[in-house]
């Protein structure tokens, strides 16, 4: 166990920090619980009844806020799951009042919508990283289909008139005691989200919103993580829907409609999409005020429209963000600062770690241009190799083809004996391939510490680990070494990575790439933008780390001085294929290579 001076103070902070943190993650739920207990005492049962409806909407709004504020994709059709939960829950309540065995079906009323959401999200997100806006529109079209179906299949849903005569859950009264159940549900969902945000999964969600590409290169199956989060949001919506059915006693197609979907989004935006409590209170405050003032005051809805525009334009984190700014706390990620501390992390899964890489006649085209044109290249075993060649030679494209970012037109790429073709980036990363991008791609709004932990967790989180506190205390010898090699990172642990200067960002990007301890490193211009002194240090660190990991490394570099310093075999790429390979000295006398570099041949 190597412990660095930079990691030392973090160690002593760790335990206390995390305990404080757990308390804080439940604080919003505690405030909410107190307020909801006080409400019927301060007002009367009717006030509680009215507020109860918007608490129900608020729970569904929290789901929208989870997807949008945490993971960065906007579900525009959340009412589909709300409506499904309402119809299924309402029908179950009706059936159960006649035949108690139907109570067993109630969980299905919540699980079916969640499974539908999960399936849709898996199908859509697996296809493309850039499916965000399309996903939003798909959910919108789906809720409109649901609305049509609810109107059309009147035998099942009661059509336009709705599914009426839904009884309360036994022992509860719609106009008084049901409020208690709703209040418990609202506190529970707020507490659940608060706790999740303080666990590793919360940090991973933020990281996905920040830079999904980077997450995939670390080996996180982001499409599955997004689908799971979407399913959770659908579960919240369906639960809220079932409560809605009990509260209203009738479910009409409007519960599945476009208008309600948009209202969830508006409430989340106004209340604060990054904060579960904010989203809930947004729904309660705006929704309740609208219901009260709509009839009294004709221009009220114009005012709501203006408020919404103002929030979108000037308050991206809604009123909750404003409140947080007012109380002087940091913005996103300010609460869940994980500590890098010394508690040995488990090994990354060692099965299926690739050590040999082979390109066999790889062709790739993009927009009609051939960028890889029969590339043959193979490396095996540990050690550094350099990839050089003029601009447009296909160096970065070779990395892209290997990591699932560029479809192959012909040929194949093998990791050991496994064909990479058609595999997503995260699968390749899980085979032990670490990639450092040409332009450092860190998670700008996360702190340096969070950046490092996200990379450290890659390949190490198993089972329920993402939900446990424990991984916040993980550390590895390599991690301590990185902080020693790059002291500037240790000094900036709690600052957002987006504020780091270019040179430090290169250091962070390199650390992110090696922390999952890959067996094959793809380093794309690690020294770009570094001063000569920084370049020297970077080369030393690369050499030491590659040796320590016993990894093979393929390094793209333009600076031939750096290539010479790195030693190792050199591959020259030209016009999408391998031109020559050998030691730098040999290549410097090679006529073909000289012509390419001197511009003699086209």
């Amino acid at each position, binding site marked *: 166990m190597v412990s660095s001076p930079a990691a030392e103070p973090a160690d002593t902070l760790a335990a206390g920090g995390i305990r404080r943190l757990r308390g804080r993650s439940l604080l919003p739920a505690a405030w909410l619980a107190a307020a909801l207990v006080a409400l019927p005492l301060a007002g009367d049962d009717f006030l509680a009844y009215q507020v109860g409806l918007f608490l129900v909407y608020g729970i569904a709004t929290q789901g929208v806020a989870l997807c*949008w504020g945490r993971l960065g994709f*906007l579900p525009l059709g959340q009412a589909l799951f709300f409506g499904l939960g309402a119809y299924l829950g309402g029908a179950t309540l009706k059936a159960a009042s006649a035949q108690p065995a139907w109570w067993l079906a109630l969980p299905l009323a919540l699980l079916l919508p969640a499974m539908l959401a999960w399936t849709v999200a898996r*199908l*859509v997100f697996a*296809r*493309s990283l850039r*499916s*965000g*806006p*399309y996903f*939003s*529109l*798909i959910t919108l*079209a*789906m809720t*409109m*289909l649901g609305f*049509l179906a609810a*109107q*059309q299949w009147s035998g099942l849903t009661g059509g336009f008139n709705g599914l009426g005569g839904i009884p309360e859950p036994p022992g509860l009264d719609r106009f008084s005691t049901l409020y208690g159940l709703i209040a418990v549900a609202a506190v529970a969902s707020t507490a659940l989200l608060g706790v999740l945000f303080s666990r590793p999964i919360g940090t991973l969600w933020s990281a996905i919103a920040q830079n999904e590409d980077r997450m995939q290169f670390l080996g996180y199956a982001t499409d599955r993580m997004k689908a799971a989060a979407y399913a959770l949001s659908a579960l919240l919506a369906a639960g809220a829907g079932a409560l809605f059915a009990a509260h209203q006693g009738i479910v009409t197609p409007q519960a599945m409609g*476009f208008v309600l979907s*948009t209202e969830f*989004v*508006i409430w989340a*935006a106004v209340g604060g999409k990054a904060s579960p409590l904010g989203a809930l209170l947004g729904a309660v405050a705006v929704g309740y005020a609208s219901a009260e003032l709509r009839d009294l005051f*004709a*221009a009220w*809805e*114009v005012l*709501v*429209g*203006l408020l*919404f*525009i103002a929030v*979108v*334009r000037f308050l*991206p984190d809604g009123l909750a963000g404003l409140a947080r700014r007012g109380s002087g706390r940091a913005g996103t990620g300010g609460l869940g600062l994980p500590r890098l501390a010394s508690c040995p992390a488990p090994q990354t899964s060692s099965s299926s770690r690739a050590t040999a890489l082979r390109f066999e006649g790889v062709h790739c085209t993009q*927009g009609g241009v051939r960028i890889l044109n029969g590339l043959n290249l193979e490396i095996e075993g540990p050690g550094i190799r350099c990839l050089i060649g003029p601009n447009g030679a296909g160096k970065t494209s070779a990395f892209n083809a290997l990591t699932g970012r560029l479809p192959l037109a012909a040929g194949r790429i093998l990791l050991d004996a496994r064909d990479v073709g058609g595999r997503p980036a995260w699968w390749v990363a899980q085979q032990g391939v670490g990639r450092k991008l040409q332009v450092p791609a860190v998670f700008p709004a996360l702190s340096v510490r969070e950046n490092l932990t996200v990379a450290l967790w890659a390949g190490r989180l198993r089972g329920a680990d993402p939900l446990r506190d424990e991984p916040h205390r993980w550390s590895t010898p390599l991690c301590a070494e990185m902080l020693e090699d790059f002291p500037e990172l240790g000094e900036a642990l709690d600052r957002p990575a987006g504020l780091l200067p270019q040179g430090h960002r290169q250091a962070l990007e390199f650390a992110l790439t090696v922390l999952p301890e890959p067996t094959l490193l793809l380093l794309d211009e690690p020294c770009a933008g570094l001063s000569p002194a920084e370049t020297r240090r970077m080369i030393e660190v690369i050499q030491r780390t590659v040796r320590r990991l016993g990894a093979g490394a393929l390094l793209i570099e333009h600076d031939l001085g750096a290539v010479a310093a790195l030693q190792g075999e050199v591959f020259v790429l030209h016009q999408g294929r391998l031109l020559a390979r050998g030691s730098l000295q040999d290549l410097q006398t090679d006529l073909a290579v000289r012509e390419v570099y001197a511009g003699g041949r086209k």
Partner: protein
Amino acid sequence: MDGGTLLHGLNIVYELATLALTTLGLAVVFGLLGVMNMAHGEFVMIGAYSVVAAQQWGWPIAAAFPLALAVCGGLGWMVERWLIRPLYARPFDTLLATWALAMLMRKVVEAIWGRGFRNIDSSLTAAVPIGSTAYPAYRLVLMALALLLLVALFFWYRRSSAGLRVRAMTGNPVLAQALGIDTRRLASQAFVIGVMLAGAAGVLLAPLIRIEPGIGIDYLLDAFFVLVVGGLGTFGGFIGGVGVIGGSQAVVSSLAGQTSGYALVLVISILFLWLRPDGLFARR
């Protein structure tokens, strides 16, 4: 050709023409600027209400046209300047901001004219004989106008220097700027033109529809679906999208009812969004 078939064909052409009319504005704003203007339908709605206003104030109906262009143009300029421009880099936020704008426009119109339906009294519904059947003259005029507008826009986009600048900006905004194209002004103009087209479509459609503050959403969604199916920024895609969405809706609606037609459009759109998000004629 017997009268029934001819009537049927004319109806489908009419559907396609109105769809093309209401989509054009969004094709400019979304297709060229990449702004998902959720208030597009509301600009169509404003166009229709300017006919209502003209009629109410005792103006000649034709005066609604300049009125709608002025209102939509002025509003569009302000919206682009203060709402869209600061948000170009944040696509989700433009979507939301224009959505909020749509809500606001709806509510303002509701506050002025109320929620009820309105119809335009007009003498334009007279039918003229065509072959063995008769067809409302105004609908024929509308089809001709839609065709004319499409052709004009095509030549403007492909042949004029302004069109060239717009294409340059769409292809590579930074390079276009480096070549001395004032992309900011150009984007503003494109947005204003887009919403003015929407307003004009509203004026033209006003005599044919029941006007109420909430009509915008249907126009918006149909237009979106056309662009999704057709892909952005190409003329062939636009025509193809209008054909697929309008055609399938018209055919299925006449066979199995309005709801089925609409459901089919939704399903087609979901499939396209999922499997071919770059549209019908995407290269990859």
